[in-house]
């Protein structure tokens, strides 16, 4: 029912329970917008207008966004197992309400296909877990980014990449799902860089940091089964990753990177680091009869920060007060060197990446408190399979013409 060139947009920025808008909480926003649910943007250049307006309003991560039209948002909402007005929680620090509809609008902006919404909703549920400490993540001067690991059948159905190039560009699901939670943090939580967040450098992972576990090459149980879910379930696991450090080689090399100042904050707050293990390394370990626990044991025992380096480090000498290190750190220092995590169980292992003879692993040290490894099942709508098929058919038809 709209004129040619009229786009009906769902306003994607957050509103608090009191009715106040997130944009109004830190002084006047850069560009005005109507404080209502839907806005109409008109004219033959409506799409360009939206890009310009959204950039000026501070609603983008710097890249172009997909305008969250009613049609697109409603298409995504068809995949939500909940009502559009349902509130998942308040996004810290500015506490905009995470309604299913606003999450969908930000997912559309990020470039998500409608069928990605259940995964995005599960990821937002992880963000809202108090253990994730979203407030800390959003406001710190450190460079931490959420790391989203997808496991289970849905990863395959949605083509979330866990193999070659899993941490890089080229897969719509990885790119858009990871970006969706960033836009939720940005627009509903108000975590705008330079306004609320003051990270020194930030990191590229703040555009998107999302991959699937390599189910095919994983010799052990999947991440979500470790967390207590059924194998047939699908889940997302969210970690706080200070950064992503590439490590070529095997367990010894990974351990050698873990046992350095790179693990400083993880150690300080008893955090849970993530290790993305290359398929070749995992296969090698499995061949030698090592399970995940044995791998964790190895890393915990060998990946230790030398005590002398720890004592004279920037953290120890300039940041942490006397007695500020956890007891287990002091205890470890008494007898030897400092492990990168409090216990082997605190190390999260995920097999990912392409299977190549020169194995490329990644070490993602943890940041912040409390210790967190958050898993949420992906809740699917009742008619998921039919909806997915219809969505694929529609996409095929679109491409065919």
């Amino acid at each position, binding site marked *: *029912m*709209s*004129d040619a060139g*009229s786009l009906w947009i769902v306003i994607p920025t957050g509103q608090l*329970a009191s009715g106040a808008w997130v944009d*109004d909480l830190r002084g006047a926003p850069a560009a005005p917008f109507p404080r209502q649910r839907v806005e109409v943007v008109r004219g033959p250049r409506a799409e360009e207008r939206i890009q310009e307006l959204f950039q000026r309003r501070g609603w983008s991560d710097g890249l172009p966004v997909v305008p969250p039209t009613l049609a697109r948002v409603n298409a995504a909402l068809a995949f939500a197992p909940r009502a559009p007005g349902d509130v998942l929680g308040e996004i810290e620090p500015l506490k905009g309400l995470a309604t299913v509809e606003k999450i969908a609008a930000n997912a559309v902006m990020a470039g998500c296909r409608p069928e990605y919404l259940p995964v995005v909703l599960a990821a937002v549920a992880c963000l809202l877990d108090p253990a994730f400490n979203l407030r800390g993540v959003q406001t710190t001067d450190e460079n931490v980014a959420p790391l989203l690991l997808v496991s289970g059948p849905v990863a395959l159905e949605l083509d979330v990449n866990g193999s070659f190039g899993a941490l890089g560009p080229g897969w719509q699901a990885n790119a858009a799902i990871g970006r969706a939670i960033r836009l939720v943090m940005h627009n509903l939580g108000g975590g705008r860089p330079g306004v609320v967040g003051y990270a020194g450098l930030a990191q590229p992972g703040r555009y998107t940091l999302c991959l699937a576990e390599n189910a095919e090459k994983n010799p052990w149980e999947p991440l979500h089964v470790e967390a207590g879910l059924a194998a047939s379930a699908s889940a997302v696991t969210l970690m706080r990753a200070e950064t992503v450090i590439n490590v070529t080689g095997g367990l010894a090399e990974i351990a050698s990177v873990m046992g350095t100042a790179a693990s400083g904050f993880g150690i300080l707050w008893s955090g849970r680091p993530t290790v993305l293990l290359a398929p070749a390394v995992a296969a090698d370990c499995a061949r030698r009869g090592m399970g995940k626990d044995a791998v964790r044991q190895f890393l915990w025992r060998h990946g230790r920060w030398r005590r002398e380096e720890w004592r004279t480090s920037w953290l120890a000498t300039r940041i942490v007060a006397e007695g500020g290190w956890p007891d287990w750190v002091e205890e470890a220092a008494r007898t030897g060197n400092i492990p990168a995590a409090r216990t082997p169980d605190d190390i999260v292992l995920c097999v990912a990446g392409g299977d190549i003879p020169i194995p490329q692993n990644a070490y993602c040290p943890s940041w912040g408190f409390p210790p967190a490894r958050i898993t949420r099942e992906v809740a699917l709508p009742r008619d998921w399979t039919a909806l997915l098929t219809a969505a694929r058919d529609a996409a095929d038809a679109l491409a065919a013409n």
Partner: protein
Amino acid sequence: MLRASAVAEQAGTPTSSLCCEGFLGQAKTISVGLGYPNLALAKVPGHVDVQTADELRANVLGTTVAQVIDNLCGEVAAMQIATDPDPEEIVFEGSFEEVNRLFLENGWSDGLPIVPPTKEKIASFLAFTDLPHEHAIGKLPPDNRIATVWNVAVNGVMAGCRPEYMPILVALVEAMADPQYGVEHSGNTPGAETQIVLNGPIIKRLGFNYEQGALRDGFQPNTSIGRFWRLYLRNVAGFLPHQNDKGTFGNTWRVVLAENEDVLARIGWPTVAADMGVAAGENAVTISRFTGGNVIVSVFGDTAEKVLPYLGNALVSHSAWELIFTVGMASGTYRPLLILSPLIAETIAKTMTKRDVQQWLFENARMPASLFEKYLWGWTNLVPGKRTLNDWVRLGKLPKAFAGNDPDRLVPLVTKPEHFMIAVAGDPLRSNCYLLIHNGILGFPVSKTVRLPPGWAEKLRDAQG
């Protein structure tokens, strides 16, 4: 409950407000309307009505206690206020369909097409009042937005009213803003709905229906003004479903009920407005809120004594939890409305005045005391303390008619005969009557005279051509 917290904060005492989980969102918006947007709330998980004593205890100890302590001793959350558009500023330009779509998507419409509120249309309404358009009629909870002549006109246009209805619309909003009515309760879970009763010469002047189909849609004044009422409750008072309006089921707007004043004059009975203290011959609206009711079909008999028992029985069988407004939650505030068709009114009036009817109902429309008590606290969780009606007589909350120890004794439904409200309308040749069951202090009867500005009649004549 939150009003009490606001009063305490105002007095300088820190508060913690206990809220069941499902109420927290609503609590935040209500808090804004109270002037304390960051009122400290402590959550009680789930809903208390369905928890065992052990579950309640575990929930309170596991979640609520910590939040109460934090509410009273912790950091005060920063205040945030919403910024609103200027009411006289154009917010959108578009086709009829686009305006409707935008209003619907933004929660400004009730789901039916609205008449686009252009400045031209608003001006035509303002021409039928002599009040300045920025005149503030009152402040409406829960949103605490100002009711102005301007936004009365805007919503009147949207509802499909005619400009000449403006004085009635203003009177209705004056009534809505009267604290006696209790508009702040209009979003409660029972979801009762207002009934507007109109009296005065304006009934005929504007063509209100008062005969067959008196409660049905189809007549522009009755219907559009009924719709205006709910649009106004939504847009200006701020009652929106899934937000401040928590009616479990709700009902939709009722058309305006106009009384058959010819019949009332003929039988010598006062109008509803006259009963409410309005001078005879004045135009007036009376608002009251009703939970529901029923049509009383085939009222049979040729004398008052023959027809009244059936009507009395209808009152008894339809009054249930609402009796907490006779005693328990409030005392003597129950005002059920009996609408008699002219035929039945004339039959009764052969030997009785309205007062006589009220007296008869007080003495004969009675219920066993034990059943009355079941509605208060036996079957429901509405009135704590498990007091008997006799206990309340002793406390001075009920008159002697309720006294006694026999649980089977019959007791009245109201504390005074004149609490039975009676109107006359409907098909003059039918023997059906209608009963509306009242929501007590949660929508108490309020009347306001309809002030016609000088020149209203001339303007109307001009407008009608």
